[in-house]
């Protein structure tokens, strides 16, 4: 069974890399075009706010993308090259020659759920809300490169940029279009006091039919949706289940049709269920141990390399992930276009690890099984989030592996809030963490030397002047092909320094009802083409 799992994972990986857009209509029996039906989707947390500019978490943003329209849809081809965009509310766009002005033409068929047409006024209003300090949208920085958004006529919008940059369209497309006719009357500075649930006007594929907080969200077909004949589903129900385990239990009990992430340990049970299908695909994330390089014990790259080489990552893949993932190499995922193909994971070699530690002055002189230097034993605390069982398992396995080379690593599980405070304060030795990689390759956020006050996503305080210099150079280049050689060199430097022990590149295991048709499931967004999803009538296979 598990051999099969690996084989299947490999096959799907190849498929995912080889053909960027499998035809969504290719459901067996041609049932994909059927209209109607309900899909029940498991969700870990409730929506924070029905106004996309007031929520702070990503789960809310993902769900609201079904209710509010986007100008364009970012495609799932980010691993081949920087992601491309398909028209959505904007059915076409034209760049000026200098690359500073963009004219978009909106789909004239688009209607809000109350029947009012979606016009350029909505796009302008959205931009005003996005950059308003009273609204205080957390991600307003994405709009720094935009000088103005203006309505040319009812269906034409002109956007003026102040710089040319490879990610201009991505920045413009960030954020959902909101209804000016319904919301413009509410002053920005009172947005935080409004009960938005009662003011939802949908312009995406679905509109809000009901929301019982902490229980369920019911979306129904928005008849004014601009793509003709879509969505196929009548209703999409999101059931809130606050734990991974609960989600799987409900999936197996037949109470859910779609769970985005099944823990590897439950895969066999999902597979054994004839009513369920499992989709295995590369996630945009890698799991690693972030070492605090500011700690004198961990400052030496030889020590960090030794730690990595002491960890049996192959066993870790088998035990924790049931063989589903592959070893990670460096700071760029190996499936991404920017990955340096010359790099390989450091080997598993406890003897070499011991030798490296001895080189760095760490030897077991008192025979207690733990190496020491200047009388101080190499004892580390390994943090992991209390909410995440996979990462806890990793910490427990790593503890065993490191003990064999004379390093004591005691796991400590903290809930996320506490953990992040420890990371921000630099008050940790090592931390089993996961980075979800944006489709925009931006290595500076994590790998540039930390600012003077120390607070950045570079939790481990990694600092390499050569990396800093190359990162600055990359930022100057507007063309992707020019950036690639520099990115390659940065990756090589980071892999040699091992500020992280790169463990595994994650695979996502999505389970859905066998009756679900037309779903294109990928790591771009959780509900990528939900307007095209359909449900085969009961009994049809």
């Amino acid at each position, binding site marked *: 069974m*598990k*051999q099969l799992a*690996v084989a299947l994972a490999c096959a799907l990986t190849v498929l995912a890399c080889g053909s960027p857009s499998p035809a969504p209509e290719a459901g067996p029996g041609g049932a994909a075009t059927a209209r109607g039906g309900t899909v029940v989707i498991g969700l870990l947390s409730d929506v924070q706010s029905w106004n996309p500019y007031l929520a702070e978490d990503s789960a809310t943003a993902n769900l609201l993308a079904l209710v509010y329209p986007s100008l364009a849809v970012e495609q799932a081809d980010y691993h081949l090259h920087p992601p491309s965009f398909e028209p959505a509310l904007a059915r076409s766009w034209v760049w000026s020659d200098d690359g500073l002005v963009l004219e978009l033409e909106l789909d004239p068929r688009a209607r809000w759920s109350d029947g009012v047409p979606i016009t350029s006024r909505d796009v302008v209003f959205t931009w005003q809300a996005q950059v308003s300090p009273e609204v205080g949208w957390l991600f307003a920085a994405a709009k720094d490169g935009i000088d103005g958004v203006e309505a040319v006529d009812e269906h034409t919008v002109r956007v003026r940029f102040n710089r040319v940059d490879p990610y201009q369209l991505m920045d413009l497309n960030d954020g959902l279009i909101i209804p000016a006719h319904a919301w413009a009357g509410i002053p920005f500075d009172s947005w935080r006091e409004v009960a938005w649930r009662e003011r939802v006007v949908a312009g995406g594929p679905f509109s809000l039919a009901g929301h019982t907080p902490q229980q369920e969200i019911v979306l129904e077909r928005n008849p004014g949706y601009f793509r003709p004949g879509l969505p196929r589903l009548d209703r999409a129900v999101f059931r809130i289940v606050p734990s991974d*385990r609960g989600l799987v239990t409900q999936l197996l009990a037949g109470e859910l049709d779609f769970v985005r992430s099944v823990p590897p*340990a439950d895969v*066999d*049970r999902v597979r054994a269920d004839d009513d369920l299908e499992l989709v295995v695909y590369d996630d945009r994330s890698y799991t690693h141990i972030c070492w605090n390089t500011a700690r004198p014990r961990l400052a030496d790259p030889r020590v960090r390399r030794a730690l990595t080489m002491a960890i*049996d990552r192959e*066993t870790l893949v*088998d*035990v924790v992930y049931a*063989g589903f993932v592959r070893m990670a190499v460096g700071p760029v995922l190996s499936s991404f276009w920017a990955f340096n193909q010359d790099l390989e994971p450091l080997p598993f070699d*406890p*003897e070499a690890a011991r030798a490296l530690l001895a080189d760095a002055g760490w030897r077991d002189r008192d025979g207690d099984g733990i190496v020491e230097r200047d009388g101080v034993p190499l004892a580390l605390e390994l943090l992991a989030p*209390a909410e995440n*069982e996979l990462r*806890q*398992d990793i*910490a*427990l*396995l790593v*503890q*065993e592996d490191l003990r*064999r080379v004379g390093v004591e690593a*005691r*796991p*400590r*599980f*903290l*809930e996320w*809030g*506490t953990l992040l405070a420890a990371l921000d304060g630099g008050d940790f030795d090592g931390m089993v963490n996961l980075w979800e990689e944006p489709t925009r390759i931006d290595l500076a956020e994590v790998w540039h030397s930390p600012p003077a006050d120390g607070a950045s996503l570079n939790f481990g305080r990694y600092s390499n002047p050569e990396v800093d210099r190359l990162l600055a150079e990359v930022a100057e280049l507007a063309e992707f092909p020019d950036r690639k050689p520099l990115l390659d060199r940065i990756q090589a430097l980071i892999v040699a320094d091992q500020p992280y022990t790169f463990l595994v590149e994650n695979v996502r295991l999505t389970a859905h009802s066998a009756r679900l048709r037309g779903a294109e499931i990928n790591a771009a967004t959780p509900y990528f083409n939900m307007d095209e999803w359909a449900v085969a009538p009961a009994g049809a296979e």
Partner: protein
Amino acid sequence: MIRSPRLAVGSTVLALLVLLCVAGPALRRPAPAGDPARAALLPPGAVATEVVLDNGRSLVSPRVAVTEHAVVVGGPLRDTEVPRERVVDMRQVRFWLGSDRFGRDVLAQMMNGGRISLSVAFLGAVIALFAGTTVGLGAATGGRWLDALLMRMVDAVLAFPVLFLLILVAALVRPGPVLLVVVLGLTSWMGLARLVRGQVLSLRGRTFVLAARAAGCSPTRIWQRHYLPNLAGPVSQDTALRLGDLVLAEATLSYLGLGIPPDIPTWGSMVAQGHRVMVDGWWLATFPGLAIAALVVALALIGDGIQERLSRS
């Protein structure tokens, strides 16, 4: 002295459990080494072969084959071949209660974990006993104002959401056995304080105490002869039951991730961890769960036995 069957059964079970935890590891040959890749989730009674390598590492698998040049150790995903000259020793090991997700022997873990579970509950109960008795006696004998003050204090402590307090305390201090003992002790004395106070107040009005006082007995003597013997019964019964509650509380805290660090197994954390794989490894949560239940039942029987003896004498 009246014999109580409940007391006898309860004490025997308790003694057996304690003996198993204290002397068990010594009685048993070295427990099988943990091999997460090959010996994970073996059912109870499974026999496996432990292959000891020259670098001190052990591979454990139920499927080991010896060929001319190599020892092939089977695994669920792939087999591992080890050259024969690298194998120092090969021996049969039996997982009496199965193995966990990391290939560790459940029985060995239960013996180690039981020591911690029992000590945590015992020490927590001692703290509760001390704090509860002190506050209860203080309230009953210290006059109106002290009584009102202490009883409102009891109410206030009861009014704290203990669980939530623990979440935050665990964030402040590294969770560990000591913290757990202190927290469990300090959050479970209130019932005892009420009990002691109530007993003393009701004894005060009883005829034999009034008679003793009228006969001019000194307060010390009255305490020795009348209060303490009458308090001892209910207090020890309550403490026996409380011990059981504390074992359960430790389990619940571990389930919520607030207990003892995960690399130290306790019965509670074993149930909590095993709970995740109820279907694939029913034995993981079942055996420590049964141990907890046996302990709680034994303590309850002891408590009942004490009460039985009291009511008969």
